[in-house]
């Protein structure tokens, strides 16, 4: 009896100890995630997947590499969130006071990293520079007729017509100090209001940033942030493996097995705004005929090609811009793989024995040669002979701009996160980028640009992409994910679709 009771007591005690031990253990585990490194060791190195031609945002406003760095140094009136919706940054609020005038209320108490307070004069100075430089953003900014600083915290933009796309564009207009608007040297290494400050820049080697200790918002957790400009794929992986780099901007699919085999690395695919297109020269016979263009599209088994070459890192597109951007809705009746149908359509268009064409590609785009080989093989199967012309970037650009091609393949990004940026900029008649013109489409684009009602805009873009799927001016081939590889010691890293990572929240643990 006693022994039985003792036995039970013993068992109960053992269970209690075990429960305490287990809860204690799990509690301890939850309470102490990997320990944060001391401040003097918060030094992170990132290898971006884009080149950095210059740090002057006004000269190269659309360069991905420049934006990736400068979005941590300079800020804009608005910034795009994960769904590409404009959110307050240096402006706290905005409203359309008339259909063509947009008024911003600026954030108060903001200072540049040198201590100088931020005012509307700085916004005016920066706009002066972005508009005067007539760089790649000039077409998008041409709708602005005037802008004024009404008082130190109010800034107003007047446009020539109503527009619903301006805010996305303004997320690329970075604000520097107004007094330096014509100073190229200053803008080459500018002082901003962002969480980091540039300390050194060696072209084609690295850009080093340090924490802005006077930042108006929550201060960055990293002490220094280095953008190491490594281009060779193997060198990037090696840098990650030996701890020289903490984060790689993009890992190509064929390197996945290598990276996944590294125990201390996580690989995160994130939705991006980058996509790859193939354009037909719509002004050059026989590609002037939409039947021929559709046939060439139908000859390609894009889902299989994309799956084999890019696996889960890319997906075929169902519209003419990446689905992560606003307004890029699924087009109805997009051509799909049908080699027999392609042959029949070619015969109908008057080419029963096939045709010959060339395709231009840029050797600096890694993997394009493989993609083009796959296309050439599939076109050959329906009797179309295509000769690839691989060219270095300079020659490529000259031939591309001169329309000296039958077909061309290239990557592109919808970096304002809005369909207008890609569709209206590339496919309207005036742009004449690929000899394509459809006045009906132009009318839809203009209407969609001027509307500020999202549902109306979506409906207009739906009509537009449906027309484009019939006309087939080009083939939207696939949209890619950015595959960021990071050491497990890197915490709170989040990758927005623009790929402009906000490094201020990131920190390192042991």
């Amino acid at each position, binding site marked *: 009896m006693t022994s039985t009771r003792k036995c039970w007591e013993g068992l109960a005690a053992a269970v209690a100890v075990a429960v305490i031990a287990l809860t204690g253990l799990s509690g301890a585990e939850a309470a102490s995630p990997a320990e944060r490194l001391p401040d003097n060791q918060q030094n992170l190195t990132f290898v971006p997947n884009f080149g950095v031609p210059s740090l002057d945002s006004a000269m190269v406003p659309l360069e991905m590499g420049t934006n990736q760095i400068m979005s941590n140094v300079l800020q804009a009136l608005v910034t795009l969130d994960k769904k590409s919706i404009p959110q307050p940054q240096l402006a706290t609020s905005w409203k359309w006071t008339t259909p063509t005038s947009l008024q911003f209320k600026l954030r108060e108490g903001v200072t540049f990293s040198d201590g100088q307070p931020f005012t509307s004069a700085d916004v005016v100075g920066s706009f002066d520079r972005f508009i005067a430089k007539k760089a790649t953003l000039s077409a998008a900014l041409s709708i602005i007729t005037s802008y004024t600083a009404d008082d130190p915290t109010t800034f107003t933009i007047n446009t020539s017509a109503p527009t619903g796309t301006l805010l996305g564009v303004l997320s690329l207009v970075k604000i520097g100090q107004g007094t330096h608007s014509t100073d190229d040297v200053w803008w080459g290494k500018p002082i901003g209001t962002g969480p980091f400050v540039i300390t050194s820049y060696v072209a084609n080697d690295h850009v080093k940033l340090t924490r802005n200790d006077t930042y108006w918002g929550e201060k960055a957790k990293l002490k220094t942030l280095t953008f190491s400009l490594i281009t060779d*794929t*193997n060198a990037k*992986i090696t840098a990650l493996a030996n701890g020289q780099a903490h984060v790689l901007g993009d890992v*190509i699919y*064929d*390197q996945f*097995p*290598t990276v996944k085999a590294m125990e201390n690395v996580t690989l995160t695919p994130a939705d991006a705004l980058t996509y790859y297109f193939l354009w037909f020269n719509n002004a050059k016979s026989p590609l002037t005929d939409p039947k021929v263009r559709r046939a060439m599209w139908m000859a390609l088994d894009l889902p*299989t*090609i994309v799956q*084999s*070459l890019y696996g889960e890192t890319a997906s075929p597109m169902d519209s003419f811009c990446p689905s992560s951007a606003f307004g890029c809705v699924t087009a109805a009746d997009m051509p799909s793989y049908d080699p027999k149908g392609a042959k029949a359509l070619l015969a109908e268009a008057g080419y029963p024995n096939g045709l010959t064409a060339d395709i231009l*590609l840029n*050797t600096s785009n890694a993997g394009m*040669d*493989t993609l*083009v*080989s*796959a296309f*050439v*093989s599939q076109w*050959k199967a329906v009797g179309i002979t295509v*000769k*690839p012309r*691989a060219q270095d970037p300079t020659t490529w650009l000259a031939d591309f701009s001169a329309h000296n091609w039958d077909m061309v393949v290239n990557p592109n990004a919808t970096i304002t996160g809005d369909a207008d940026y890609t569709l209206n900029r590339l496919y309207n008649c005036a742009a004449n980028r690929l000899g394509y013109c459809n006045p009906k489409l132009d009318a839809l684009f203009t209407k969609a640009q001027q509307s500020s009602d999202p549902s109306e805009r979506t409906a207009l873009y739906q009509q537009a992409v449906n027309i484009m799927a019939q006309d087939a001016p080009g083939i939207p081939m696939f949209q890619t994910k950015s595959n960021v590889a990071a050491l497990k010691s890197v915490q709170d890293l989040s990758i927005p679709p623009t790929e402009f990572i906000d490094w201020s929240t990131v920190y390192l643990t042991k």
Partner: protein
Amino acid sequence: MSADQAVITIAPSHARRLRATVSARILVPLVVIGILGIGAIVVPVLYNYDPLHADLLVRLKPPGTAMPDGSIAIFGTDKVGSDLFAEMMAGTRVSLIVGASTLLIAGIVGGILGLLAGYFGGWLDTALMRIADIQLAFPSILLAILLVSVLGQGILNVIIVLSISNWVIFARVIRSQVLGLKSLEYVEAARTLGASHFHIIFRTLLPGCIAPMLVIASVEFGYVVLAEAALSFLGVGAPFGTPSLGSTISTGTQYLASAWWISTIPGLLLLVLVLATGVLGDALRDRFDPRLRSA
């Protein structure tokens, strides 16, 4: 007496042994180059190799994989699913064509200039040899990269570029050979009999230069093949759509961890090809120009 006999019996056997090793050193590389040459002509035809053909479903397969058409990819497949063996042989074909054409052009141009410089001497000799000095002082692969960047990609341009960077060697060697031959009795005799310059240069001096020319050609062959591969590796040699060992090795470097065979096997083939021509050149030199023999 016995000592004399020993000398008489040992000397011929030593000479025989030497001849035998020289023959083996000529024969083995010749067989290797011959096999590669035949392979380069036959294999791409047998495999119906098309450099632009892609079969993505069988890309990056290891050596020995059975292909959907029933064949075996003995060296595996590359990044677009091409049979690596056929691709390598097509690349070897390009290497051999570039090597042979370059040596032909560089040999003819360099040979003629060397003959003229050596025979006439004077300002022509000084001018040509100073140009040669300047060019020799400049690293030849850098010169080739510079020229090919100006001329653009393409096999013909690679041949032109490598010929430009190789004529100097021929010119220098032939010139020194001519300087030696010029004072020999049979050349003096021809001159005394009133033979024209043309006759002296091409009928009396040239035949004496053939052996050293062959020796240099075989030594330089390996260098030219390697230079073409280097240019293609750097992306300035064979254009997209033209197979080349250099570009195959270059694309394979991306896959060293996951598909080692794409770089490694063509790399070994290039090694064998260059080594074979090097050994052959060495042996030919020993055979035809024993004065140059080392050790």
